[in-house]
Every structure is written in structure tokens, then in C-alpha cells.
């Protein structure tokens, strides 16, 4: 029974609305106590997946298991899940105390215990003094903390968060990100977090599930998804990436030489599972911050490719700058920390790419 290790498991779950498939048959295991993020653009199926797990949507096929037990036929109110919504969804006609205590009313909890648990939950979200207020008297950030308190006070098996930070403004969002992660760590509660914000996903998750068009593109730890994207989509969705189409020129067991169409040849590190043979069409993915600009006279070191280029535009960001560089007429992006002064528009530069920063993707995945 290794099902016990998974807090949530979905098996071949799909959701169709008429002719439209919101979620293709999908398998996903979520380990006990882990923080898993479903990341993707709108319409990718992440919210559909969350709502199916919550019991708000019925899957067209497949099984949902919570703590090893199939819950397809368990109505939402008996699934013991904590749900937090983007718009907080606090009951406007109830005080903060009554909002947080709501779930306890259906759990045969004594009055004293209820007061005690509500107080503890409010303390956990650092708003112990607001119990008598009404939601409309609270700021957005406070409302979201209360919504979180309401969800965790029932000690749910799984916490489901549907874009809980999107309605907050930028500074508050970053604070809440840290706060949410702290609370999750403290409680050790299995959490499924839905977002379209890659920064949130990278900062908070143990594992990220990147989704697109109702399919899972990649599952992995944040560093893994970020550094070794499994597809062009993942590479582009998580930060700025350069995707360079080309052809394998030659390979040995340490390096692969790729001729990039119209640009030049670059060296990539050979990873054993990549079966690219000589002549195969491939794409090389290089993150913008791994593309190093240097003075035009720079020399290639071992394991590094150098391409000549010119700065077309500069997006100055303070501690770093984003450059749009033209290399033989092809535009690339580079995000570099600024040393002394940023490169200027029109300046000639050499573009340095280290072999180990390149990810090789087969060309056949273009449509995926």
C-alpha cells in the first residue's frame, strides 16, 4: 500500500465540457506534506484540476484518491479540504470569528474548543485582534489571511489554494508569499497551489506541475523546471529564454556542437539521455540571464561559445539590465547584472554562452 505516501492522487482524470477538453487524462501524485504548484496560463486546466480534487467539479473520467481512499463519490462537504479563493470568499454577513468558526460548526466541536481553535488560527495568521470585525472592514491582505485561517482551522487533509495572491498588490503579494510558506511549513499540511505566476511557483513550491492546454508539460522541483525545461513552452513560460533552432553538427561523449540557423555554431554539454545524432534538427534553449555579454574582443574559453552581436535595445532595471541583442540578424535576450555601466544601445558586444547552460530539445516537439 504505497498509496499511503500520497496525500492526493489522481488517476487518468479528464474533464470535458461538450466538445471542449479542459483536462486530458492526467495522472498526478502529491506527497504527504508537500507544497505542489499547478502552474500555467489561463485555460491550461490547472483550476479545473483543483476543482475536481475539491469536489466542485465532477471529472468526466478517472479516479481521485485522498489519503489512499477513492473520493469520487464523496460530496465536497465530507472531503475535509481547506479551500482558499482568489477573491477570499469570506462571508460578508458574518464576523471574522464566525467566518473562521464556520467549518467547526459542522465538526461537533464544543464551544470552548471552538473559541480556542479560532483564536489559535487567528494567531497563526497574525491577526488575533480582528475577531469582531466584519470582512468589509479589513484590507485585502487581511481578508486573505482570514480566509486562510478559516481553511486551516478545520485541520483539512489537503489545503487547496486557487490563485490566492492574484488579487493583492505587488508588495503585499510578496509578503503573503513568505507568510503562506511559513504557515504551510509550520503546519506541514499538504498544499496544492494554483497560479499563473512563475515567480510565486518558483518561490514557494516543493514541486511544480507546469500545465498547458489540459496537459501536464513537466513536473519537477523548481530548479529542475527552471534549469532543465522539458519543452520550449516551459522554457518560455518560466522567465525569459532564447530558443535557437539548429542542427547537430558533431558530437562526442562530452559535447555536442550545434549549428544554429543563420547564427553560428555553439557548444552544448552532452547529456546521456539526449539521443541527438549528427544531422538531427534540434533547438537549444538558453536562459536570458545565462547569456553573458562581454566586450567584443573577448576570447572563447574551454566549454564556451562566443558569438558576435550588437545591442539593439536596453531595458534598464537598476541592479540588472535586459538587453536585446542582434546576432547576425537574429534577436536574443540577455539579462545581465550591471558591472560599472550597462552596455549602450548600438554597442558591439560578444555574446558568451557556456555549454552547461544550454538545454537541448529535439525539434519534433515544436508543436508541444
Amino acid at each position: 500500500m504505497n498509496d499511503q505516501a500520497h496525500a492526493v492522487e489522481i488517476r487518468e482524470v479528464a474533464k470535458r465540457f461538450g466538445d471542449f477538453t479542459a483536462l486530458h487524462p492526467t495522472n498526478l501524485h502529491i506527497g504527504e506534506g508537500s507544497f505542489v504548484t499547478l502552474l500555467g496560463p489561463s485555460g491550461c486546466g490547472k483550476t479545473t484540476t483543483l476543482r475536481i480534487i475539491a469536489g466542485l467539479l465532477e471529472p468526466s473520467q478517472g479516479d481521485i484518491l485522498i489519503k489512499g481512499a477513492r473520493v469520487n463519490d464523496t460530496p465536497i462537504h465530507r472531503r475535509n479540504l481547506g479551500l482558499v479563493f482568489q477573491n477570499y470568499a469570506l462571508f460578508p454577513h458574518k464576523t471574522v470569528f464566525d467566518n473562521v468558526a464556520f467549518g467547526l460548526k459542522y465538526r461537533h466541536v464544543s464551544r470552548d474548543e471552538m473559541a480556542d481553535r479560532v483564536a489559535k488560527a487567528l494567531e497563526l495568521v497574525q491577526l488575533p485582534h480582528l475577531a469582531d470585525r466584519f470582512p468589509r472592514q479589513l484590507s485585502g491582505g487581511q481578508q486573505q489571511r482570514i480566509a486562510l485561517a478559516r481553511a486551516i482551522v478545520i485541520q483539512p487533509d489537503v489545503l487547496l489554494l486557487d490563485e490566492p495572491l492574484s488579487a493583492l498588490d505587488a508588495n503585499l503579494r510578496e509578503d503573503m508569499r513568505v507568510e503562506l510558506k511559513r504557515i504551510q511549513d509550520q503546519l506541514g499540511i499538504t498544499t496544492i497551489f494554483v497560479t499563473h505566476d512563475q515567480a510565486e511557483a518558483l518561490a514557494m513550491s516543493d514541486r511544480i506541475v507546469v500545465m498547458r492546454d489540459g496537459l501536464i508539460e513537466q513536473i519537477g522541483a523548481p530548479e529542475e523546471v527552471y534549469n532543465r525545461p522539458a519543452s520550449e513552452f516551459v522554457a518560455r513560460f518560466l522567465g525569459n529564454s532564447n530558443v535557437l533552432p539548429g542542427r547537430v553538427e558533431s558530437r562526442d561523449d562530452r559535447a555536442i556542437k550545434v549549428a544554429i540557423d543563420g547564427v553560428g555554431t555553439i557548444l552544448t554539454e552532452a547529456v546521456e539521455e539526449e539521443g541527438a545524432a549528427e544531422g538531427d534538427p534540434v533547438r537549444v534553449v538558453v536562459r536570458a540571464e545565462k547569456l553573458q555579454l562581454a566586450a567584443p574582443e573577448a576570447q572563447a574559453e574551454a566549454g564556451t561559445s562566443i558569438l558576435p552581436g550588437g545591442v539593439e535595445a536596453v531595458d534598464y532595471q537598476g541592479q540588472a539590465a535586459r538587453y536585446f541583442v542582434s546576432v547576425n540578424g537574429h534577436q536574443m535576450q540577455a539579462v545581465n547584472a550591471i558591472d560599472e555601466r550597462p552596455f549602450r544601445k548600438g554597442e558591439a558586444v560578444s555574446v558568451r554562452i557556456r555549454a552547461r547552460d544550454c538545454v537541448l530539445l529535439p525539434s519534433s516537439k515544436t508543436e508541444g
Partner: protein
Amino acid sequence: MAQSAEGDLSAKPWLLMSPALAAVALLLVIPVFFIVVYSFWLRTAVGAVEAGFHLDNWAEVLTDPFYRDILFATIRIAFITTVLCAVLGYIPAYFIANAGRQHRLLLILLLMLPFWISYIIRTMSWINILGASGALNYGLMGLGITSEPIRMLYNEATVILGLVHFLLPFMILNIYVSLEAIDRNLIDAARSLGSTSWQAFREVTLPLSLPGLAAGSLLCFVLGAGTYITPMVLGGPTDAMFANLVFEAVITQLNWPLGSALSLVLLVVLGSVVALYNRFLGLGQIAKSFQ
């Protein structure tokens, strides 16, 4: 400089409101003022109306138990009608609010459909249903359940029936508006926290729809208490409501001063109801259903 800008700002709202204010003054304030003046005039025995300051109409209206009894009956009928509308209106309103988007528009259109037919015609249609030779009696006699037509029309019950028929759409629309405004996530949140759908309705949906229910009730009460056509068409000789007295005084007896005093009594009673409502619940909700 700053002062002139401020001066412009304070004048602008009044300027923009002036057409509405003019309409209210011309169509509402001035006519009511005339009615107040009229109520102190007197209709002499020969039928001429004598201008002046006479308290005779007011003395008659305020002391004669005949008027008082009919006022109480009017309030009772309006109240029963309102309660029936609330109970009967909530269910369709809930149904429409939870219907799919396309169906919802169609259902609201159907709800508005009766307004395209004259209120008098709609009221009179009950005669064809409940009358001695109406559909119901025809059916009952055809089935042999009764040999004589049953007398169903012309009593307080048919007046209330007619009023419910007339006022139900107003109630449904008002409840619908407040139900529709409830965030679906609130219900989902309540359900996820462990409540059954019935508990979620009682804890979340019902309390949040009360403003619409209250607004609908106020409209039904005021419109119901002010009507004279329904009791005239569907009521018996003893089922007159207060507005019938006004009609009788003004149209039949041509006693405008008495009719004015009577209508002012109704205005004050219904105005107090509205004022009380506004004091405790606020009139803003009613405006929402017309948006």
C-alpha cells in the same frame, strides 16, 4: 483660482440634476401641493366646490369608522399579498438565478412578458377562469363533480389572488437581483467547510438575499395597498380597498376635496411604511433591481 474651480464644482451637480428636479417638481411636488390645497375645500350640498379652509373633509375621514375599517382591511390584504408573494416568489427567483446564462435571459424575458399585456386585462382574465361559466366550473361540471357552478369569484381571496398575480414579477425580480449578486465562491466555500447544500443555503444564500426580499416586499406592499382595479374587478361589494374610496369620491361623486383628503391619508400611511423601511434597511436595494 482655486475658489472659482470650487464654485464650478458645487454648481455643476445642480445643473446636471436640474432636468430631473424640474420633472419631480412639475409632476410630483406641485400636483401633491394642489391635492393638499383641495383637501381643505368643500363640496356643498348643491354640488359646487367651495374654495377656502374647511376641516370638514378631514374630520369625516379621520373620525368615521367606515374609513378606518377599510384602511385596516387594505393593510391586511396588502400584507397577506406580500407574504404570499415572498413565499411564492423566492423559488422561481432562486431557480432563475441558478439557471445557465442563456436560460436565465429567456426566463427573465418570460417574467417580463405579462407586463406587455394591460394589467386590467390580466386581472379580468381570472373571470374567464373562476367565473360561473369560467374554465374551472366548466371543467368541474363536465367531469360531473358538481352540477351547479361553484361561486369562486368576488371575495377577498380572489382580490388577493389577483394582487399576487399582478405583483409576483416585482418580487421575483427583486429577489433574483440579490441572489444573482451572491458570489458563487461563498457557497463553494461553505460547502468545502462541511455544510450540506441546505445548510449552505440557510447560512449563506438566504441571509444574503434578505435585502432583495425586503425590497420586493416593500414594493409589493405599497403597490398592493394602493391598487383599486383588482378589488373593483375581482372583489365583491364589501371588498373595497382604500384606493377604491378615492376613486368613488373623485370619479363617481365628483367630490374632489374628499377624494384629496382620502388620498393624502393613504399617501401618509404608505409614506410612513417607506420611511420606516428606509430607516432600517435603506432604499438603495430597490434601485438595483431596475439597473
